[in-house]
């Protein structure tokens, strides 16, 4: 249900390379010393964001940039370098902080995208660069010291860190009397950045570490360590601590071993200080770096030569190669510090933060790699021991305390990293795999969700790593177990990434070892895409895999034991459906097995189990119904029905147990049999109470399930009394009177019932429906209830159409159709917005299926023309089209889908089918059935250019025009804009006048005026019409009207319409639109003199905003239109008057002046 799959676009290459280079080139051409003007700055900023946006697109696949990077990065760095050079030459010249900042940020964007290790390679590192970069960094009060220029500082620092690798004594850069000056300058300035919270810290740490691993400046490392320890002991803040640790970690990693070994005690002391300082230890990053430090110290204490004899990277290409490595054979003394470090790493494996656990896991594995075999084996044993810590007290995996999550995750990660290095002896495999089998299912419920997906992912990681490193022979005993478990997780995990992870591990095993039963076949069914969508994994892939006996019962049991009991109800629902599909592979055997186990679930006290059990039983019963052997089905149904008695009634109908009520109703609707309905033979005496409770339930899905149960009752033909009972005694009356929310089920029930058994019930049902939807104020039923009632109408028709006259007369069917047509005019709104649109959409659907039902059965309906008069058909078409051009995208889409279905209908099978010919069919087909261009009615840009042409068809003209006007009056830009453009060009294409039914501008205008006049007091009708006129007037679409008297008469009518009683209008939009029309009519020569006297109404209006807007609008019109007179004076008055002034005299005089100036001539 919520299993939306979001896949980032996958690129195959850096497609936007050309575009990117061009934009970047334009950025590099700017003068960095020149400050951009505000406009330039805005433009440059946009250009720059384009670049960083493109880079962001490639963030996930940044390696695609590799072939282009050198040519991309080098020019930017060059630019920076020459700027640095120029800045050093003249300290007074200060670069533009905006431009230099952007340049540096561009470089930072590259680093962010591809990583500094890659980008740094393209920085220059000649001897001369050292002084350029260093001096630039040190310019006093230079741009680089500016607080905002963090990117510049970062880039220069990492640049210096590269330059620091030059193989020359740094002393060569010093003047003779100041030996050590250069190194001092680098060190001291880098140190100042170590306490910065920004990225500079990382750059500075890198620079310092490069400095300290150098041959000539390595001696500075010891003082640095001493200083670090002092700082830490003096309660350095967290940020500084991180900076210091970054330096130390980097040096310990890449420095020369002899130098590190000399300093082990200092290094361990630093780790110890941190261990002792609570404030520091509470920070995740500090703990991470501490873990790194500890593991790296241990690493450097151990001999580096990898023990190749034990490490077997299995290859298909060639034989395994063993290095003759005498050192590896000899055991050596493992320093005590290493044991101590391992202890710390084991506890870090259980850290509450993932990053720390990761660091520790890698540390443990790297250290093990260098340890003697026996010792490494002990490490693995200890790691596996972590699994047991929380398991001793727990009865099952699901009873573990929540804290076990981090322990298990850390243990899995460490095992995975160890396995990846091929350090797991085959004797250890059985124990490890046993733990992993549990870890794959690790899922601890916590409140309304669960934790542990990271453990499951890490378990898949271990199995993946084992597939890559273990011997086929040692995996062989575990193959079937692993295959089954991995498949179960790949198919049935709740999370997409876990399903994929399990599928990836499965694939690795199949590809490398080929031990899994039907491996390739199953892999094809559970690959990356097959398991991506939960529904597909459960309902398509799982039954396919269950074809194989090796997997079948394992999957079945997994569903019964795990999925049906899952905390997420949607999992249980999909799981039960999957169960049915698996049972279908061998129903006779699997059905009873699954039923027996599901029945046991009903004895649980956990609501999830009850729900899962009920769902499973329903689905198994469904399987029997569809495919069960004759004779046994009825028995199975009764058995299943009987199981319901295991759950006490108060639980089934308990408050907040909606899912269980619904599941029970569903079980009833599927397994209800005649004997069970008799009070004396039923095994579940309270089943009716469940259904009744469900009908009155406030949650829609429970109501629907209960309505289904009612429908199955009505299908058991003999059971007349239920219906009588329902209609004549209780049900309807109860529902009518009951709480509003429960009314919703009325429509659902009435629509679902099979009336064939009891046609006399039908009139009352229909009465009830029509009285329910009758418009009243205030409405006596909720919108949802009315919507359900409308939806019930076509359903009733569908169940009765086979023998229509027996159930309904001509008048009844016609009145049903009218009810649906009436629903199209429901524009109710409440605090949720246009809720009437639900009803309109339901009626559009209803009318569509209503029409389809009748036309498909036209052959068997004797008085077809009476039941479905052609005029009604045209009203339906017109009504749907009106909805199809209105404001809401989803309603338009619904109408479009419905209308397309109607277009596709065959002619009715009657004597004279041409009566039901769709008016304007050929135009409609041209507009909407051209498959190559079909986009969807929800897309205004596609729809409206077509929709306006519907006005050509006289039958649809009025409703479509009304719909279009409504849309034009909407504030939705995506509707308004394409519609205005389309309508203007459509009107321009119309003739001024015409003979016959062809549409013309004059008639259109008259139609619009008539529409407005029909409800002159309703602003919601008039304002959209006025807006439409303004759109047309401002689009120059009506100029032609001035050419003849009919047009002028129309325009005069319009003028009267908008100028009557202006002072009494209260709706601001109506005043505004009226004002605009008057002003827009000014350029029409014959109307000018009539318009001018009306201007004071608006220009001197009591609302200041109207006065101001009027003045502005007049000015705009005068500017834009050719008035045939000199209007400079008027324009001057308009501009110079303070229209919103509260001084009435001022504006009054100005109004008089405007009118007077207009009247001259």
């Amino acid at each position: 249900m919520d299993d939306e799959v979001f896949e980032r676009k996958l690129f195959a290459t850096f497609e936007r390379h050309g575009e990117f280079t061009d934009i970047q080139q334009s950025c590099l051409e700017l003068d960095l010393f020149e400050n951009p003007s505000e406009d330039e700055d805005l433009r440059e900023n946009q250009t720059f964001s384009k670049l960083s946006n493109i880079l962001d697109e490639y963030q996930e696949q940044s390696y695609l940039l590799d072939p282009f990077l050198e040519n991309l990065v080098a020019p930017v760095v060059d630019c920076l370098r020459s700027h640095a050079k120029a800045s050093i030459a003249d300290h007074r010249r200060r670069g533009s902080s905006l431009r230099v900042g952007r340049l540096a940020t561009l470089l930072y964007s590259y680093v962010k995208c591809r990583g500094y290790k890659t980008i740094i390679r393209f920085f220059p590192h000649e001897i001369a660069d050292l002084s350029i970069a260093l001096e630039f960094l040190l310019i006093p009060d230079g741009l680089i010291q500016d607080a905002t220029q963090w990117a510049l500082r970062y880039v220069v620092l990492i640049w210096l860190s590269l330059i620091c690798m030059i193989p020359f004594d740094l002393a060569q850069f010093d003047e003779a009397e100041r030996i050590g000056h250069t190194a001092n300058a680098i060190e001291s300035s880098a140190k100042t950045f170590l306490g910065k919270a920004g990225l500079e810290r990382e750059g500075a740490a890198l620079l310092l570490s490069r400095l300290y691993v150098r041959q000539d400046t390595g001696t500075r490392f010891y003082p640095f360590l001493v200083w670090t320890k002092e700082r830490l002991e003096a309660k350095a803040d967290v940020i500084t601590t991180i900076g210091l640790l970054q330096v130390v970690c980097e040096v310990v990693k890449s420095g020369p071993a002899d130098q590190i070994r000399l300093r082990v005690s200092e290094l361990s002391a630093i780790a110890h200080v941190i261990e002792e300082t609570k404030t520091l230890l509470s920070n995740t990053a500090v703990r991470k770096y501490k873990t790194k430090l500890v593991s790296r110290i241990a690493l450097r204490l151990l001999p580096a030569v990898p023990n190749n004899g034990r490490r077997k990277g299995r290859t298909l290409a060639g034989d395994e190669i063993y290095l003759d490595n005498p050192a590896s054979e000899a055991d050596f003394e493992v320093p005590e510090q290493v044991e101590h470090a391992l202890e710390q790493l084991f506890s870090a494996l259980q850290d509450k933060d993932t990053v720390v656990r990761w660091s520790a896991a890698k540390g443990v594995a790297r250290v093990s790699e260098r340890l003697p075999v026996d010792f490494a084996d002990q490490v693995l044993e200890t790691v596996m021991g972590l699994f047991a810590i929380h398991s001793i007290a727990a009865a099952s995996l699901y009873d573990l305390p929540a804290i076990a999550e981090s322990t298990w995750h850390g243990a899995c990660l460490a095992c995975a990293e160890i396995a990846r290095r091929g350090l797991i002896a085959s004797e250890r495999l059985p124990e490890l795999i046993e733990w992993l089998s549990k870890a794959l299912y690790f899922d601890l419920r916590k409140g309304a969700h669960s934790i542990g997906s990271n453990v499951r992912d890490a378990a898949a990681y271990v199995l993946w790593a084992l597939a890559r490193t273990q011997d086929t022979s040692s995996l062989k005993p575990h193959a079937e177990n692993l295959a089954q478990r991995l498949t179960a997780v790949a198919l049935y995990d709740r999370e997409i990434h876990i399903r994929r992870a399990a599928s990836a591990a499965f694939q690795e095993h199949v590809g490398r070892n080929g031990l899994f039963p039907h491996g390739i076949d199953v892999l094809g069914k559970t690959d990356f895409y097959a398991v991506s969508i939960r529904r597909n994994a459960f309902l398509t892939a799982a039954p396919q895999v269950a074809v194989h006996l090796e997997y079948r019962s394992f999957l079945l049991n997994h569903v019964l034991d795990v999925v049906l009991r899952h905390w997420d109800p949607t999992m249980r629902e999909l799981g039960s459906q999957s169960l049915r599909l698996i049972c279908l592979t061998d129903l006779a055997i699997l059905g009873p097995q699954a039923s027996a186990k599901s029945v046991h679930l009903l004895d649980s006290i956990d609501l999830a189990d009850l729900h899962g059990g009920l769902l499973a039983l329903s689905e198994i019963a469904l399987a029997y119904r569809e495919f069960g052997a004759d004779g046994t089905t009825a028995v199975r149904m009764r058995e299943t029905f009987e199981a319901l008695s295991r759950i006490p009634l108060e639980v089934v109908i308990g408050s907040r147990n909606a899912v269980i009520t619904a599941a029970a109703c569903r079980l009833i609707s599927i397994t209800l049999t005649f004997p069970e309905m008799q009070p004396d033979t039923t095994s579940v005496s309270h089943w009716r109470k469940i259904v009744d409770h469900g009908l009155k339930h406030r949650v829609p899905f429970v109501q629907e399930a209960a309505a289904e149960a009612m429908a199955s009752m009505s299908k058991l033909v003999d059971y007349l009394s239920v219906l009588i009972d329902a209609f004549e005694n209780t049900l309807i009356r109860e529902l009518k009177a009951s709480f509003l929310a429960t009314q919703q089920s009325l429509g659902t029930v009435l629509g679902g019932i099979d009336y064939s058994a009891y046609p006399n019930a039908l009139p009352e049902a229909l009465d009830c429906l029509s009285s329910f939807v009758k418009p009243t104020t205030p409405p006596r039923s909720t919108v949802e209830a009315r919507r359900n009632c409308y939806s019930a109408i076509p359903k009733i028709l569908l169940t009765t159409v086979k023998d229509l006259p027996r159930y309904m007369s001509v008048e009844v069917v016609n009145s049903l159709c009218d009810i649906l047509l009436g629903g199209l005019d429901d524009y109710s709104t409440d605090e949720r917005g246009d809720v009437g649109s639900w009803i309109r959409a339901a009626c559009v659907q209803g009318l569509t299926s209503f029409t389809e039902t009748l036309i498909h059965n036209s052959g068997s309906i004797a008085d077809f023309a009476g039941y479905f008069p052609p005029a009604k058909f045209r009203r339906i078409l017109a009504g749907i089209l009106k909805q199809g051009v209105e404001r809401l995208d989803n309603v338009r889409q619904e109408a479009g889908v419905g209308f397309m279905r109607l277009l596709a209908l065959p002619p009715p099978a009657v004597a004279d089918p041409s009566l039901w010919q769709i008016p304007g069919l050929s135009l409609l087909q041209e507009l909407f059935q051209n498959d190559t261009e079909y986009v969807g009615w929800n897309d205004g840009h596609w729809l409206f250019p077509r929709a306006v042409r519907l006005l050509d068809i006289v039958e649809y003209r009025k409703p479509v025009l009304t719909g279009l006007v409504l849309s034009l009056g909407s504030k939705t830009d995506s509707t308004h804009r394409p519609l205005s453009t389309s309508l203007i060009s459509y009107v321009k294409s119309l003739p001024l006048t015409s003979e016959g039914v062809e549409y013309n501008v004059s008639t259109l205008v008259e139609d619009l005026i008539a529409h407005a006049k029909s409800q002159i007091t309703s602003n919601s009708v008039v304002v959209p019409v006025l807006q439409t006129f303004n759109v047309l007037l401002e689009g120059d679409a009506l100029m032609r009207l001035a050419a003849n008297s009919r047009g002028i008469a129309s325009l005069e009518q319009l003028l009267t319409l908008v100028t009557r009683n202006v002072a009494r209008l209260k709706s601001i939009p109506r005043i505004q639109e009226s004002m605009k029309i008057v002003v827009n009519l000014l350029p029409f020569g014959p109307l000018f003199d009539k318009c001018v006297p009306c201007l004071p109404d608006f220009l001197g209006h009591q609302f200041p905003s109207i006065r101001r807007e009027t003045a502005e609008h007049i000015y705009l019109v005068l500017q834009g239109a050719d008035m045939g007179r000199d209007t400079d004076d008027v324009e001057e008055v308009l501009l110079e008057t303070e229209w919103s002034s509260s001084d009435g005299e001022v504006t009054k005089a100005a109004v008089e002046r405007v009118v007077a100036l207009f009247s001259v001539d």
Partner: protein
Amino acid sequence: MGLLTIIRKNRQKEREMRILFLGLDNAGKTTILKKLNGEDIMSISPTLGFNIKTFAHGNYILNIWDVGGQRTLRPYWRNYFEQTDALVWVVDSSDRMRMGDCKQELHSLLTEDRLAGASLLVFANKQDLQGSMTDAEIQQVLDLPAITTHHWKIWPCSAVTGKNLVEGLDWVVATPPGSRAEDPQRRGTGISVIPEYGKLTQMHHHHRSPITSCNTKRRPRTITMSPLNCLRTLFAPCEYDASDTPALFLALKTFRLTTPTPLIPA
């Protein structure tokens, strides 16, 4: 970071190698690099400092660090050892005078723990010059057979003619796992029948064939039919049944047998 991220990163890292070019001054390190990169080799002066070159070689991205070989620079070589997958030691075959020097520098490098696991390629350069030593002679003089800690191989070559340069790099990228750098993520396997999980299957998804591509970490160079095509032929039809399975593994087995073992020093 989940398993899928790990797999993706792994694929990417398996395709990258960091190679360090070292040797005495005037051995021709920079010249070899420029020749490989198709640049002009006529005006090359001694490297004062270091060069970084990145280029694609087959399926690999090679990051080559070339450091000057003057005596004064040699103490700084260790700045560049980190994360090295392969060491290329370039020898001036005509410089008989300094062979001892050359041997001593090389052997001292090999004791460095940060180079443990890197494979060693010795380029006996300047074979085009009259009177230069042969690779066999150099092998003896440098006492290469005594090296047991690293995979090594010597190739006679000429930076001027370009002879054996590409072949040498081929050997570097084909050196089997286990001898590579300590980072396990670099330790790939041979020809894997595993498509890049989730990625390639997408392109061919409509075939519903699980195995659509191969990650040829170690490129086989002598088989006539690529493993990819082997598998494609096997799986060409969209539907296949279980009886195909033995055929696949038979095919793979045969394939494994016919693939030559990489060159290893005797």
